[in-house]
Every structure is written in structure tokens, then in C-alpha cells.
């Protein structure tokens, strides 16, 4: 593909990348390029100065105190296959395995998926549910952004000019008893979510929900948490009554629109169905 870029700057270290980007925030960072190249074809970013992060982004997945730190450059394939992640946050691994199809998963990075800030970004719901921190790197060093504060609108995030995503930190001191991700589209692979959902639950010995987190994608301007669902679950067992309250509650958490992929009413039906099915699965588990 011929893309019209002005030039490409390829730093040798991540620090060099941060320094260059702080000096020149109009540069366009590129990691796996799977979003950017599509957007460029559509005519965006003509004449861009690319900042090539591909060789310098942290990409390891490592335990660090009460956290697992995932380098922004970790690919979906690496995330899906990561043993530590699979044991503490299976939902994220499931989501990573649902991004596009395998060839895309081998290029697409976690940092890129978040920075691109699509309402349908598949890794967003599990990260929201896990109370993840997005670690941003800028001139002044590193700062943490709560995942919930990270998304600002379709294609908009709260990174400051000149900031890069360094890594994502998942608190793992208290892993949930149940953690799932699911997405809905007209096909099984290579499909942008029409609705996506992640739920994590902490259940005590009596089967009561002590902590609940839920988040959805493609039902609002950003991926978002579902506080009403969470509220109706906590303190209850996952009996049919609780499940049907959650199914109703989710409607208060979403503001879907009609778009090219599906009408708003369908997304409402789908959100209800996915919440119900996931909780039914959790109740059986």
C-alpha cells in the first residue's frame, strides 16, 4: 500500500520516543499500524510525521507487586497466550483473541487499541472491569490514568499532547471468581463488535456477590462501566430474580445509537441478552 506520509522517525529507545514526542506533539505515533493504516487509506493524516514505536515500546507482561504490568506494545496474540494473565484476568485474554483474526492479533497492540479509543475497542471492557491503570509517559515522567477516565469520546482519549501510553497495570491482589468477555457481531471472526460485554464477580462461600464489575462496548460514545448492573448484583446470589434485575438495569447504563452496524433497539436487546447469558453462566459456575 502506498501511504502518503511526510517522514518516519524511528527512535532507538522508548525514552527517545517520549522526548521526541514531547518536542513535537503533532507527530503521529504508530505501533502495530492496524488502525492507522486503515485510517490513512480513508484519507486521514496525509503528510503525517510518523513516530514509529514498534521497536521501542515496552511489551513484556510481568508481575510487579500487586499488579501485572502489560507493556503498551504487547500484541493481542501475546496477551491472549499469557499464562499469568489467563489466571488473573481471563476476560482480557478472551477479548484479545477476539480482535480481528489471528493475523491482526499478531500486530495489533494493547496500547494502540486503547489510544485509538473506538467505542468498540474490544480490550476496553475487560480493562474497565479490572480497574486497570493506563500508565502514560510524558516529559514529566510517568502518570497513572484510571481506565474509566481514559476514554473521552469516539476516537478521543485523555492523554495530554506529547504523552504516550507506556503500559497498562492490572491490580491483581484480589482476583475475581468469575471473569468473562464476549462480543457480538454478524460473523465469528474479523468483525467489529456490535455490542461487547465483560463482567467480573467476586462470590463468597454462600454464593453471594461481594463485588461486581461490568462494562460494555459499542453502546455509548465510549466503552463504559455499567454501574446499575453492578449495584443490583452486589449482596445477592445469582438467582433468576437477580439476573433479571441486572438485565433490566443494563438499559440504564447504555445510550446506544443507530449506526451503520446496527439499530439502537437491537443493541438494547443484545445488551440485555448478553448480560443475562453471562450471569447465567456465572451462576452455573
Amino acid at each position, binding site marked *: 500500500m*502506498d501511504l*502518503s506520509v511526510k517522514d518516519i522517525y524511528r527512535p532507538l529507545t522508548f525514552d527517545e520516543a517520549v522526548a521526541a514526542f514531547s518536542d513535537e506533539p503533532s507527530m503521529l505515533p504508530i505501533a502495530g499500524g492496524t488502525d492507522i493504516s*486503515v485510517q490513512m*487509506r*480513508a484519507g486521514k493524516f496525509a503528510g503525517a510525521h510518523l513516530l514509529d514505536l514498534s521497536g521501542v515500546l515496552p511489551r513484556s507482561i510481568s508481575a510487579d507487586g500487586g499488579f501485572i504490568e502489560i507493556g503498551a506494545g504487547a500484541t493481542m496474540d501475546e496477551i491472549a497466550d499469557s499464562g499469568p494473565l489467563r489466571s488473573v484476568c481471563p476476560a482480557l485474554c478472551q477479548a484479545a483473541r477476539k480482535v480481528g*483474526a489471528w493475523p491482526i492479533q499478531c500486530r495489533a497492540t494493547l496500547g494502540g487499541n486503547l489510544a485509538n479509543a473506538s467505542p468498540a475497542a474490544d480490550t476496553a471492557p475487560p480493562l474497565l472491569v479490572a480497574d486497570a491503570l493506563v500508565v502514560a509517559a510524558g516529559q514529566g515522567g510517568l502518570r497513572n490514568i484510571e481506565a474509566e477516565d481514559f476514554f473521552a469520546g469516539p476516537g478521543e482519549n485523555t492523554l495530554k499532547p506529547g504523552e504516550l501510553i507506556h503500559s497498562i497495570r492490572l491490580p491483581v491482589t484480589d482476583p475475581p471468581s468469575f471473569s468473562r468477555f464476549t462480543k*457480538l457481531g*454478524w*460473523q*465469528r*471472526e*474479523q*468483525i*467489529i463488535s456490535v455490542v461487547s460485554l465483560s463482567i467480573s464477580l467476586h462470590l463468597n462461600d454462600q454464593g453471594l456477590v461481594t463485588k461486581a464489575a461490568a462494562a460494555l462496548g459499542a453502546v455509548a460514545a465510549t466503552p463504559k462501566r455499567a454501574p446499575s448492573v453492578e449495584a443490583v448484583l452486589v449482596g445477592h446470589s445469582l438467582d433468576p430474580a437477580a439476573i433479571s434485575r441486572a438485565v433490566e438495569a443494563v*438499559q440504564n447504563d447504555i445510550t446506544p445509537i443507530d449506526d*451503520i*452496524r*446496527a*439499530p439502537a*433497539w*437491537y443493541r*438494547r*436487546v*443484545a445488551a*440485555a*441478552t448478553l448480560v443475562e447469558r453471562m450471569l447465567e453462566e456465572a451462576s452455573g459456575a
Partner: protein
Amino acid sequence: MTKIQPPLGGSHRRPDAMAKATGQTRYVGDLALPGMLHAAIAVSDRASARVLNFDVASARRMPGVEAVVTADEIPGDNQVGVIFPDQPLLVTDRVRMVGDRLALVAARTPEEAWDAARAISPAYEDQPGVFDPEKALDETSPTLHGTDNLLHTFQVLRGQTDPDHLDADVIVEAHYEIGGQDHAYLEPQACLAVPEGDRITISASCQCPFYIQQAVARVLAIPLASVRVEQAPTGGAFGGKEDYPSEPAACAAMLAWRTRRPVRLLYSREFDLQVTTKRHAMVVQHRWGADKNGRLVFAEVEAVLDCGAYAGLSTVVAERANVSAIGPYAVPNIMVRTRIAYTNNLFGGAYRGFGAPQVSFAAEATMDTLAHRLGMDPLEFRRINLVTPSDPLTCTDQPLAAPQMAQACLDRAVKDSEEHQIAPRAPDSWRRGRGISLALYGINLHRGGQFLDRSSAVVILQPDASVIVRVGLTEMGQGNLAAVQTVTAAALGIQPDKVQVWQPDTTTVADSGPTVASRGSHSSGRAVLDAIERLRRRLDPIAAELLGCRPEDVELADSCARVSGGGPSVPLIDVTREMAARRIETISTGWYRSKPRVFDEATGMGEPYASYAMACHVVDVAVDPDLGLVRVEHVAAAHDVGRVLHRTAAEGQVEGGVVQAMGWALTEELKLDQGRLLNPSFTDYLIPTSDDAPPVTVALLEDAPGRGPFGSKGLGEPAFIPTAAAIRNAVCAALDVEINRLPLTPPVIVRALAGNHRFKHLME
């Protein structure tokens, strides 16, 4: 000559497979010449407007731009309509569709060319457009050409046709809204034009080099002989490269002629999706009646094709739709009316099945609905009404040579479906349903297009007993090279790897018409057999001399010439060496043309096709009753193929047809807003992935010989036709609903369940 011998029916490696799989095949996008320029097309972004003025001077000054061409610079006709002269190459005063061409640009890089093309934006005065084909036929609608939007009407009138007298015990009325479809060929439109003095060579991804030759000669006002068109390796076509490639080729040729440099034109996927032809969207109204014993009494069909802004091939598509509206059923009273409406929507054109899939969808859906109203099993209801040897007439009163094949295909597909152990791929909670659909397919071109139905071949026998073959019909991925190679090898009794088949070029073979209507192996194979027969008038006497027998007793088999009936033999290479030594002419041409037929266009009675093929698909689906997702779990496809030429190629046609039709049935939706495509990319125009493709059990029935080489019948289109209706019938059976539209996207299915859906309160 018609003896069945290897490699007929086998699965030797397709001759083009290795080069394609290893990336050696050079598609047009891989070709570059020194000094080559890149073409782009400035197009309208409105569907209906007057062009007040447009200025190309600033585009001419843009970086890299070498030429900008407008209508007044065309030396010949500013016209690319294939049948009707209604479509200018470049518009001057009025645009009728999004994508109408305003000007052509040649520049040093593709980006510069497209940037300049996009910068050309005329002052428009928007005009009211018409986007609904039925409304387009109202007298009050704005018109696209002339005084109304009705391009043409076709009819079939059989038996009692006065609607007031058509009555029956059970009557079904149904209204079908059937969406269009993009061809989604892997390789978008592409061509390269190279000028050379007073002549020009075009390499194009296409289905008919001869159409391009004619279009370029017409636009440049030069003789046909001055235009050489080479068939480039073609990455899929499905009808989308029948007539349409003449348009980009004429554009590239214009620019090459003007700049005197090679010019290459490649469409991006997005551009291709918006501007090229599509399967026609259709609206079909049915009123069908049956008696209480389950016999069809009458069938009334009113079909309207959405033609888009220009006629293109719409009349010939409608012609096939018209006589395909009833399917393989014996119905005494028939009234079919098929109308074509101009609209400002996407441009309708040729697409695998050529109008038949839409009307077959309606017919097979109505068959199910009628069966339900009668309280009969849809399978039994079909059995009762199929054409049979005692009732062998098609809806046009044409006797079928092998009507029993309808029943044979039905029985075989049902059996294969029942015997196949489905490994369920969808969860148990999904509902299951089975659907049946048949097709009666008229092989080869309709009577109306019969003037195109001829085919040329050239065979050159080499001194080492290998053979070069050229035919006028093209390889576009469907396997014509393999088919022609097989026919040649079988006819000469040699190994297939001794036969090299080359793509057509207008300087090496005569006009053979388009590679369409499932006529490729039929017409080119017959032409090759003719060439071989003529060659043998020179070969057999030499062989006879070497064998010491009469020329009429020479037989070719096992790479030898031998005395028929098991006498002595000599290696064929001895014969070809002897022919070379004696300087005997070893090049031979062959020709095929179909016999004239009788057909009355006013009543639709007669012989629209020379012969027919039957097909039946039985589909098992699983449907998510809450979300409307559909998983096709298995397809049993039985086809009346006459004779298998190349087995894996034939099976591949069926599997590909099934998957392509599944996309049309379930997910492929051309979303339009005022003629503009809202989803012009594969992100949102959803063709099935390999993970969605169902297992297909293919049965190729060889009981009724056809008129193709060795008794074969066309298969490319029948492979597509029955699937969508079978899927629809299966989905409706699974959910116990009636849905009369395509595609069956999840929202359509959920909406159809509305009253029974658990979350119906959310659907307001």
C-alpha cells in the same frame, strides 16, 4: 470423440494453481512499465444533479499531474452503454448516480492522480432523485432518461392469465424485498493501456476482452484491429467483470492515447464498491395458488429490478429472471411480469445467476409458505409439483430433455442431508431448522443474447506431442484453464501436463463473447473439440501410415495412436515428429455456435435456452432465538452436471457458490443513502469468513448428459442459485416465522420475532 477417458472426471492439479499459490502470477497491479502513469477518475458524489460548470484547470496544475481529460476531448463516441446508448464515458451536463465520471486524470503516482481527481468538484444543482424501484415507475417520479423510468417489460403468459380467473383452494400472496450484492472479487477492477503509434494494447482483469476491444475502438475512433486486448490473470469476477471493465479500460485508453504513455488504472476497494455494478436489488410480488391436493394451479409473479442509472446489462438479466421465476415446477397457469426501473441507486449488472437467484428465492419461499398453508411437508409438496417425464414442460412450454433430474437432485440432496452427521457448531440452545430449495437453470445464453454465443479456439500441436491451446473464453478463478486442459487431454489421449492453455488475446482468437452464463467450459470446450477434429484430418492419415491401418480406424489414447479395437499402437510423439518432418500444418482453429432457437418475447413461450440443469440444496441452520444470529451448519448440494470434467474444480464451484450465496442471504447488505453507499469497505460490507463457511456435501450427478464437451453442463451459476432460499426456509422453519426479505441480518430476524421475543419491550 466422446469416449470417456482420463483425465476426465479426475482431480489433477489445476494448471494455474501453483503459480497463484506461490505469488508468481502477475496481476495487473503487479505490472509496471518504464514511464507508466497512474490513472484516477473524478466522480460525482451526488446521485442526481445538473452539472453547472466544472473547472479542471487547477487539477491540471496539481503536483505530478500529466493530463486531465474531459468529455470534449474524446475522439470517438462518448458512450460506453453495452446495449443501450444511455451511458456516457464522461458526463457533461448531468449526473445520475454517485460515481458518474466527470474527468480523467493521469499522474506520476497513484496518490497524485487520486488527489487531483478528488480536487475536481463541479458546481451542482441538485435535482430530485428516485431511489425506490417501484416508486420510480410512478408517472410522477423524476425521470432519468426520456419520459419514464421503465426500461423494459418481459412476460411469461401460459394457460389462463387473466388474474380475475386465477383461483385456487389455497392462495399465498407475498411481497419479497431482495437486496443487491457486491461481487467482492479479491482483485478490484484493474487495467493497463499501452499506446504504440496508431494502435493500443490493453491488459485487463475481465470476463470479455472483446467487449473491451469494442469499447476502446469506439471511444478512440480507431478500427477494432488496432486494439489488442490481453486477458490478464483475473482475481475473481462473478459477473462484475463482464461488461463493467470496458469502462475503466476506456478511461485508461483515453489517457494513454492523450499522453502517449502507458497508463495503469487500479480501483481501490472503496471506489470499486461504490461505482461498479451490483446484483440487482429486486422487489417481487407473488400470488400463487394450489388445490387442496397440493397441486399448483397458478402462479402470478410481478418483479421489478432496480437497474440503477444506466441500462448496462439489465435487460438481459431481467430476461433470465423472467423465465426463471417459476423454477422446476409444473404450473398450468402462469402470469409473470418482469419490469426494469431506472433509479439513482447503484448500477445493476451481471452477477452469478443473472437475475435467477432473486426470483428463485421468491419462488422457493412461496413454495414453503404454500406447503404450510396446506398443512403439507415442504418436501412432499415439492415432490408433487416437480416437472416429471410425464409433465416435462418448463414455464415457457419448453420440453425438458431430462425432467427426472429435478427429482433426482431433490432425493440425493435430502439423502445426503439426512445421512450427514452434523457436528454442531452452534450452542444447543439455538433453534434448528432445515430448508430445501431447487433450481432449474437454463444453461448458456438466453435466446436474446444468443447472437453472442459463439466461441473460438486455436490448437497447435508441437513436435514433442505437447499442445498449445488458446480459447476465447477466460480464466477468472473459476477453472476454465483446467476445464479446457482436461477436454484437450481427454480428446487427444494425452497427459494434462502436456497441454498448456493460454488466456485469450484479441489478436489470437476471434470474438467469442463474454465468459458468462456458465458457458465457459461448454463453449470453449466445444470449440477445442472442433479444432481437434480438424487437426485429426491431418494427423490421422500420418498415424494410419505408421500403423498400417485406415485413417478412420485411428484412435488416440494413453499418449499413443492405435488401431481402434485394441490393435497395434505407436507413441503419439512418433506421429507428431513425422508430421513435423513432413512440414504438415499443425495449427488448427475451432469454432462453436449454438443452434438458432424459437422464442416469442411477447408471451415468453418457446426455447429461451438450449438445455437445462437442475440443482437442489438442503440446508441445516442453527438460529440464536434471542439475537437472530444464524449459523449454517451443513449444506447438501446435488447438481445435475451431465459429466464431471475436473472434479475438484467442479466441487470448488459448488462450495464457492454456496458460501457466496450465504453471504448474500445473511450478512451482505448494501446500505444506501440517496444512492451513496454507506458501507464501502469490508469492515462493514460483510462477506463470510472461512470460519463461517459451512461443510458442504457435494453430489455431482452424471445421469443425464448435456450439450457441453463429453456431455457436461454449466455449473458456475446453478451452484449459487438455490442456497439463499434454502437458508431462508431453514431459518423460518427454525423460528416458525415468515420472513420475506434478504439479507436476513440479525436485526431483521429479531424484528420478525417481535411479538414472541423476550425483550420485545426494548424494540420500540
